[in-house]
């Protein structure tokens, strides 16, 4: 099944009590297009992610993935459909090795969760697949290290490795460079570029680092106070007066300078 529209969101709303976190947001993510979601703090980016990835139910509206209605489908079922998210706070298996962090989701994907008599290390196919993913992320050399001993930037890469092991078609990256130093940020941007270009995976990124957004995204969606304020190419967004006002000129100009 290869619909041109991978993710379709229709008038999505979500309120918490009286607070309207998202109101009437509609957008479409075409397959293979690197999209980004931006907006000032509290604009509703994380709520949007949580609704799309099945963590929250929307108050109103629908979400379609590859034409299938996935509104309110729980996260572990979305994984099987090919929709994954990464987390803002590093969410990995700390006392396991780098290799094991990737092997765990792979074993789940291969339906081997209950294989209790076979030796894990003799599962050649599984180990090779894991090493391929780690090589892609430049982590293969550290495959036997415990991840809790890795540098922060590498831990974030483990997060990505776990996501890749699930063979996703759409990945929601929630602030992938949050807390990274400039060097690590640079490496993450390169990685997202490369993965987007050389795989079947479509990425949808939220960021508050404008530099990252404008260097990565082909299409940008701007959220403000729970509403979709604008969408377009980086140039269009940069020139959009409403967006400039929402950001009070701050971040966008800073990025330009």
């Amino acid at each position, binding site marked *: 099944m290869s619909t041109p529209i991978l993710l379709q969101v229709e008038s999505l709303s979500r309120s918490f009590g009286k607070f309207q976190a998202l109101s009437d947001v509609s957008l479409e993510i075409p397959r293979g297009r690197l999209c980004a979601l931006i907006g000032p703090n509290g604009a509703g980016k994380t709520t949007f992610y949580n609704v799309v990835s099945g963590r929250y139910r929307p108050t109103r509206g629908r979400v379609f993935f590859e034409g299938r209605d996935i509104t309110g489908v729980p*996260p*572990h*079922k979305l*994984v*099987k459909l090919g929709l994954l998210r990464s987390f803002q706070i590093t*969410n*990995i*298996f*700390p*006392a*396991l090795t780098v290799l*094991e962090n990737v*092997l*765990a*989701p792979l*074993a*789940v*994907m291969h339906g*081997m*969760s*209950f*294989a*209790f*008599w*076979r*030796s*894990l*290390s003799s*599962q050649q196919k*599984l180990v090779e697949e894991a090493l391929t993913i780690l090589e892609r992320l430049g982590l293969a050399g550290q495959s*036997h*290290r415990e991840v809790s001993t890795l540098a922060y930037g590498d831990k974030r890469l483990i997060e990505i490795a*776990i996501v890749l*092991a*699930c063979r996703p078609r759409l990945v929601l990256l929630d602030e992938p460079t949050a807390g990274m130093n400039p060097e690590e940020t640079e490496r993450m941007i390169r990685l997202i570029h490369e993965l987007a270009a050389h795989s079947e995976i479509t990425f949808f990124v939220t960021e508050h680092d404008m530099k990252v957004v404008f260097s990565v995204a082909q299409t940008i969606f701007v959220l403000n106070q729970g509403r979709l304020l604008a969408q377009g190419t980086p140039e269009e967004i940069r020139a959009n007066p409403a967006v400039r006002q929402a950001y009070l000129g701050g971040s966008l100009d800073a990025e330009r300078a």
Partner: protein
Amino acid sequence: MRIRRAGSLWIVASTAFLAAAPFFLSTYWILILTEILTMSLFAMSFNLLFGYTGLLSFGQAGIFGAGGYLAVLSLLHGPSSLWGAFAAALAGSALISLVIGWFCVRRDEIYFAILTLGFGMMLFTVAHNWRSLTGGSDGLGGFTLPPLDLFVWRGSLADPRHFYFLVLAVALIGAILLYRMVNSPFGLMLRSIRENTQRLSFVGADVRAVRLCAFVVAGTLAGIAGVLFAFFNRIASPEMLHWAFSGKAVLMTILGGSGVLLGPAVGAAIFFVLEHVITAYTTNWMVFLGAILIVLVLAFPRGVLGSLLDLVQRYRGRPRS
């Protein structure tokens, strides 16, 4: 690789020692070894949940005791068959752990511990108060141990050395099963659950089902250990089901090392040897045992075996395979 080889050398050596022990150790020490092996199996079953899956069960003794009672009941009311008694205990403890586990695996951490404690206390009360079936606080004895029938060889289990070999064989089978399990993809699931339950369920794993499997395996092995314990003492008693008895498994596991498969066995060995050595000198042995255990736990934060293995690994560098 070298560490692995050294490790297997140690395991072969200790297995050989255990197999040859009846030929050179006194009956006194054979009885102690029998107790150590029985408790090792019990503590290792507990550690599958605690050390590998991150679930602290205080109900493990309940299933351990239930296994013991079921085996004795089967001998008293059923055929006088050793394997029949084992089969009854195996099926019974598997079923009991399936039912208890079905409720308990839904919760994490302290809530899981409290649920297992609750079920354990229920089992204890059944054993303690259902006098007509279980003999109440007196326990359930008065059975004769059928001979060990291995088709090619028959021997009386009244001989401590024969009984020792039975216990050794059962404990080894249990250890091999656990070894295969923790090194399998299923074992990786268990450790991933311990490390980050939510993350594993977000990659599509059925965390509850995996936990339930671990619970049933651990419970069944505990039940089998309970059979050995009841046969050894010629009685099944309510104390076997008490949560304080689960506490023994906790203690042995932490003492030996919860991150290592054989940690609980080492813990059990240290515990029994200390107990027997100290009781020879003083009746206030609990004071001294307690003091020594405190020192050991402080000196070996990852358990005696766990910390020793860490030390070896630091000396030689991590293996690259």
